[in-house]
């Protein structure tokens, strides 16, 4: 009997190329739409203030470094509290960061930084300075309201654009 040769048995070959194309197209789409920007939090611990306890923690004057945040990302600072000399620096790495590292080396672990945003400072400035303090690992710092004396000091040095209005 003659045999009918049916050829090789097996599943029919499917051309996968268009399917792969489609797969990669979709991958590209999802890769591009995925939001990779992660949101992070920055821990803030403020002092307890119920309006009654007005006793301030005493810190040695010379250990205190006051940073005033001004308009257009200006950073003023002075050390000590008695007749201080106001200096100006920037948010650049060789500005405030270098200063903080240097002061930290000078004063040591007792260093205390007071951050006072002037009326024209932006929210970004606050985050930036807190970030710098975290980068330079300054042991203790606080964010407080700017005092009248600080503002007067800034005016006295000729930065009159830092006023409230």
């Amino acid at each position, binding site marked *: 009997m003659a045999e009918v040769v049916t050829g090789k048995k097996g599943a029919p070959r499917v*051309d*996968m*190329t268009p*399917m*792969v194309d489609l*797969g*990669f197209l*979709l*991958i590209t789409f*999802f*890769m591009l*739409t*995925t*939001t990779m*920007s*992660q*949101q*992070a*939090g*920055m*821990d*803030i*611990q*403020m*002092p*307890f*203030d*119920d*309006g009654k306890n007005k006793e301030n923690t005493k810190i040695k004057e010379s250990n205190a470094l006051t940073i005033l*945040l001004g308009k257009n990302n200006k950073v003023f600072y002075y050390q000590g509290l008695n007749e201080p000399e106001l200096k100006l620096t920037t948010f650049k*790495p060789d500005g405030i*960061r270098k200063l903080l*590292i240097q002061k930290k080396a000078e004063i040591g672990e007792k260093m205390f930084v007071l951050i006072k*945003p*002037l*009326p*024209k*400072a*932006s*929210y*970004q*400035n*606050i*985050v*930036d300075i*807190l*970030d710098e303090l*975290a*980068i*330079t690992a300054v042991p203790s710092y606080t*964010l407080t*309201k700017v005092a009248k004396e600080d503002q007067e000091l800034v005016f006295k040095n000729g930065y009159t654009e830092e006023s409230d209005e």
Partner: protein
Amino acid sequence: MSKVQIKKRGPSLDMTAMCDVAFLLLTFFILTTKFKKDEKVVVDTPSSTIEVKIPESDVITVSIDKKDKVYFTVDKPIREMVLTAMGGAAGIEFTDAEIETFSNMEMIGMPMDKLKAYLAMPDEDRAQVEMEGIPVDSTNNELGKWLFYARGASSEIGVNPFIAIKGDNKASAKKAERVIAIFQEPPNLLTKFNFITDLEQKPKGL
């Protein structure tokens, strides 16, 4: 002369494995993609190097946009409770439809006296109206109340909320200070919170 004819054909490649990989990756990206929610209020946060993860749920966020307007966001499960409590305190009763609308809103930024009218608007009209921001003055400190009731509602369902300030780069420091002051004031007396920032690479060589 006889020629041996060789058919010219590209080498046939088995695409099956490639296809498998492609679809595996595709599945991964589909599952991990989270589409950005359509936010009416744009808050462009500053970046920092500090990495504290923000939890997915139980977050109370106070946002400050670049026009210094303050918005309040609570998680969906407690939104209704917070609104009812706020309404109760202000003597405003909200209808079910208004509560429903409120539950679907990401950020709330209207003074209490205008909130009811805002929620009662048809959807298309509401989209046109710009929110005014929550009042934070010492005479009309609604933000403090929102926060107070939101924390109350959170503790009622037994969660400890993560409280964060999300400010725009261009928001003023003054407004941020005011919001922080409201956190610290009675009745909230809140001293531990977070700033939401974008992640930034840590500088090297320190």
